[in-house]
């Protein structure tokens, strides 16, 4: 019997209304699956649609955002067909989210413990005193002494705030945790601790994690699967092992070259390759493949026709897809 995916995103397309009636297509045809208890990484430079993907799934887009097509199946239910009222019951109880800056994501005038308890009480999971008990347990789970529940966010250190945020995210025992650049704002030392904590918690509670990051090192350490995004589209998608060892898309290859390999010692002075240029503005997307203006392997067809995701031959049932004309050469020649 095959395991059903917990979250299944299908052909998700999201647009933003810009000033002057311009439309920016922030996501186009994004599809991926999240298996129960596994971690999937969403990788790419800033502005490539990672956060928009999370916000579309949780239906928390700003007023200018619009999901124009696609499905988001969660445990088989299409979240996009629910009413806002029904959707609210799913949020946090089944899928919660950790934001990049915990300082801003926590209410500055509310005690940490109260903010955690609020989530539990909101979904009527248990009576007040039991919820209070659970707040203590959650704080201890993330390594914060119970007594600190009465402190305010500004009295916590940066790392502690992110831990508190994680405790809050776990409050309703969700099946899925979105982590939007959970370590970006932290010191390197603390980053490692927070990631370690996430791993530990996943092992203990068995929840699935969608990790948004631009740090490939983090992905290598944490993820089972990877979605590489560029300009609002999926460039490459597959198991972390395959994407790392046999990157197919030139963008993934460049990204991997641009990041220091964790297995190498840090002081080895390897030159880090950088990708020239900047990601495209979403209201001025290039025709054809969106990466073509920056691609070192760009061909004529790349500037005209957008490539489809093509499945790669893999051993077993591991998946590996990439969207690049290079992988399609034979077909083009034959046709």
């Amino acid at each position, binding site marked *: 019997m095959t395991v059903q995916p917990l979250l299944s995103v299908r052909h998700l397309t999201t647009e933003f209304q810009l000033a002057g009636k311009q439309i920016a297509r922030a996501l186009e045809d994004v599809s991926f699956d999240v298996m129960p208890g596994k971690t999937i990484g969403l990788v790419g430079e800033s502005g490539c649609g990672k956060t928009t993907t999370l916000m579309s799934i949780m239906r*928390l887009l700003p007023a200018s955002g619009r999901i124009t097509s696609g499905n988001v199946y969660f445990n088989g239910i299409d979240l996009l067909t629910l009413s806002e009222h029904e959707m*609210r019951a799913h949020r946090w109880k089944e899928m919660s989210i950790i*934001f990049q800056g915990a300082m801003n994501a926590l*209410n*500055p005038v*509310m005690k940490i413990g109260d903010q955690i308890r609020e989530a539990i009480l909101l979904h009527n999971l248990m009576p007040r005193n039991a919820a209070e008990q659970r707040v203590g347990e959650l704080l201890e789970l993330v390594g914060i002494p119970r007594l600190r529940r009465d402190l*305010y966010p*500004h*009295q916590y250190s940066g790392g502690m705030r992110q831990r508190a945020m994680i405790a809050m995210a776990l409050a309703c025992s969700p099946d899925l945790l979105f982590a939007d650049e959970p370590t970006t704002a932290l010191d390197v030392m603390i980053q490692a601790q927070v990631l370690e904590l996430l791993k530990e918690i996943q092992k203990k509670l068995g929840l699935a994690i969608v990790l948004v990051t631009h740090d490939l090192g983090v992905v290598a350490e944490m993820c089972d699967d990877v979605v590489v995004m560029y300009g609002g589209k999926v460039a490459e998608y597959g198991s972390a092992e395959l994407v790392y060892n046999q990157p197919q898309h030139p963008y993934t290859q460049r990204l991997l070259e641009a990041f220091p390999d964790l297995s190498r010692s840090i002081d080895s002075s390897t030159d880090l390759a950088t990708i020239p240029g900047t990601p495209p503005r979403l209201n001025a997307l290039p025709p054809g493949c969106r990466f073509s203006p920056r691609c070192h392997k760009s061909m004529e067809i790349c500037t005209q026709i957008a490539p489809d995701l093509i499945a790669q031959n893999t051993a077993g049932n591991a998946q590996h897809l990439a969207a690049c004309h290079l992988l399609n050469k034979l077909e083009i020649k034959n046709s």
Partner: protein
Amino acid sequence: MSRRDFLLRKFLLSLVTIFVVIVINFMLFRVLPGDPVRSVIGRNVRISAETQQALREQFGLDKPIFPDQFIDTIGQWAQGNLGISWSLRRPVSEVLMSKLGNTVLLIGLGQVLAIFLGVTLGLLAGWKRKTAIDVGALTFSLVAWAIPTFWLGIIFLAAGSAWFGLPTAGIMSPENTGKPLMTILPDLARHLFLPTLTLTILYLGEYMLIMRSSILEVLSEDYILTAKAKGMSDWQVLWRHALRNAMLPIVTLIALNLGFTVSGAIYIETVFSYDGLGKLFQTALVKQDYPLLQGAFLLLAVSVIIANMAADILYAVLDPRVKES
């Protein structure tokens, strides 16, 4: 900054401001032409040169202005001795105290109504940005800002008395003075209605604008998104997370607005012949009753400064970020 430092700083600032007010008041007292003895005994009292000299010595007016007279004056003021009103021939402090209650009643009513309505409407306007409520609220506050206080008062006075038969002056009908409060309440309300309405409309716009921009700022914060992600409805987010954060600037504004409120009281009490400090101030101005004018200025300024400090303390209590470093 620790909470203690914050409060200490505010306290020192208040002291400095009170000192500045005292210096201004003292200096204005001295630059007036004529013998300062007059300011103590009144302008039109005939006295002989010897008596005048004796009085000069008695009040220390023959001593140097600074520091002797200055320190002496502060001492007098501190004891509540603000001189004798020229026009009323009564001690200034006594006159002031007799009018204080009426003004506090008027300002208090106007402020409470304006704050309540302004905060509510501002909240709605910011939340439902760019809807009819928002546009209406913005237009209203813009026009309210551009209308001179006293002119609005005059219009209400004219319309209220002509069309609704409302009284045009005073705080109660003359035959009601001295009767128990309960029996004259309807009469009191009829007299207070127009001045309170004018005050409320004027301050409403300001509170509405500030609340609107405050709530707009708060609602674009990340913790609002967190609250929504928790599964809260918009109302729950507003009530539990946005309101308290958005109210913080309002607390400061209420304090800063007290000076503005005093201006309103002067205009409105003048228009409605309402027997309070504002009307007194205007009378003193017209009659060039300087001891009364300066006494009233001192009282108004010091009250506003102290109220401001109170608001700062309240702010420190409400915002935990001020509590510790």
